[in-house]
């Protein structure tokens, strides 16, 4: 891997090589193909701009994609928790308290 890999043509080859690892990352974070495009776009730009002096093109690309996926997961989590908070049935108790309640009930 050389800094030259950050150029367009070489980077396309890096993308091809990393295809299965990228797919595994997207699946692990529940990122759909539609959502994956802007994440990968941004990661590629980061490599193109910041890897001209670094040989770590693959590593930087994978780290940038993982950051993008993690940001999407955080957003999903925020929305899901907000939806739960809006819901009247939302339990604000902790799981531990619930378990104690169960134990106190007669068989």
């Amino acid at each position, binding site marked *: 891997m050389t800094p030259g890999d950050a150029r*367009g043509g070489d980077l396309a080859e890096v993308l091809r090589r990393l295809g299965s690892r990228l797919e595994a990352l997207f*699946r692990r974070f529940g990122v*759909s193909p539609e959502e994956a*495009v802007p994440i990968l*776009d941004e990661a590629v730009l980061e490599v193109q*701009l910041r890897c001209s002096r670094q040989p*770590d093109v693959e*590593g930087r690309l994978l780290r940038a994609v993982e950051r993008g996926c993690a940001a999407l997961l955080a957003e999903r989590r925020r*929305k899901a928790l907000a939806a739960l908070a809006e819901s009247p049935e939302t339990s604000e108790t*902790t799981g531990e308290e619930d378990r104690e309640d169960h134990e106190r009930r007669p068989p």
Partner: protein
Amino acid sequence: MSEDHLEDETLSRWAARKLSSEETFEVGWHLFLCAPCRARLPEIGPEAEALYDKMFAGHRFTVPPGAYDGVTRAVAEKLRRTGLAIERERSTAPTLWAELEGQPPGRRALLVENSSRFQTYGLAELLLTECRRIWSEDPARAEELAELALAVTYRLDRRIHGPALLNDIKAEAWAYIANCRRIRSDLRSVSEAFEIADEFHARGTGDPNEEASLLGLKASYLRDQRRFEDAVATIDRAIELYRETGDEHQQGRMLIKKAMMCRDMNHLEEAIALLQQAASRIDGEREPRVLLCLKNNLALYLGEAGNPLEARKMLREVRRLAVQTGMPIERLRLLWTEGLISRRLRQDSVAEAALKRTMDGFLEAGIGYDAALVALDLAELYLETERYGEARDLAARMIRVFASRDVHREALAALAILQQSIERDAATVALVQQIARYLQRARRNPALRFEP
């Protein structure tokens, strides 16, 4: 169910909202990713399906095999275009910089602010590279370059480059400004610049390379302040980060810095071992000057550690590297090392000639402080060989010449003490060494006083 899937009881408790918010999300997230568990929701009941839909707006993660093939294809197609645009920016940057360089500094910033031609990532990158190249020889000019790079970066389109990436570049520019200020001993403003760099870094991409690069510069600042423990801890963290990213060359660069700290602390053996470790990591093609610095330092430290013969053997390679880099200052540093090694080999006339040429070279280049340090090596040689007349002449010249250079007041006062001692025939080699050690410590700390 196997441990990869959710238990019925967990699902029931989740659907009945008997879990904490955190656990509710974790179970929901498992359902989001796991189609077999999701398929069991109707068995649990309508409240389970309703809860899932509420949490994920009805979205179900199902991606058939091969669905991501189109992603890499689409991005690869686009990057051919953006890659060409970035390459074009990089190739036109030298012309843009040549145009700006011909203008007075104040006008350069105006041009960058008002003309979109200069508002390119390629130009910002070139300015930062140029800043790094010249900062040890001309820190004031290097700082102007970093400031100009910052002006360019502020005008880059956030929608194209992304705010996190732009923050990385701003953090880098501010860290370079801090380093230039450190080199020209403006200590108070160094901290301010590093604080701004930290703020941008915190809002950057978070890539370990960016953090490691910032830490490397901070470690040099801590070293100048003689806060060696902090400096070593900082450099160790940078080495760890570069190890994470697999960048051996940068690990080598950090090891060279750490070796310099060890030498400052008089741990010469450790410094030599660190340089030997660095030697296997440095990529001489990537940065020939770093390889030269490593070999030059290794020769110097070996000489200081009582192995001048081994040090002399290394000099041949150092000379070859110095010719390759073509930097006059690097050659002067090599000549200085040659002079010091010759002294240890008791080749006094060779040492004297090398040290005199080095001192004159530094004076010609306007680097008075290094010239003063070389003059002290020369004074030590004269006193050791009982050539008091030459020591007197040198001392008189030192004060005259250095008063008009970049040698600060406290350092001049220390040199004056030496001159008076030589005049009274009371100077000793120990006093010269004491003043030399003081000058090293006070280099970036003009407020530090010499206390005999």
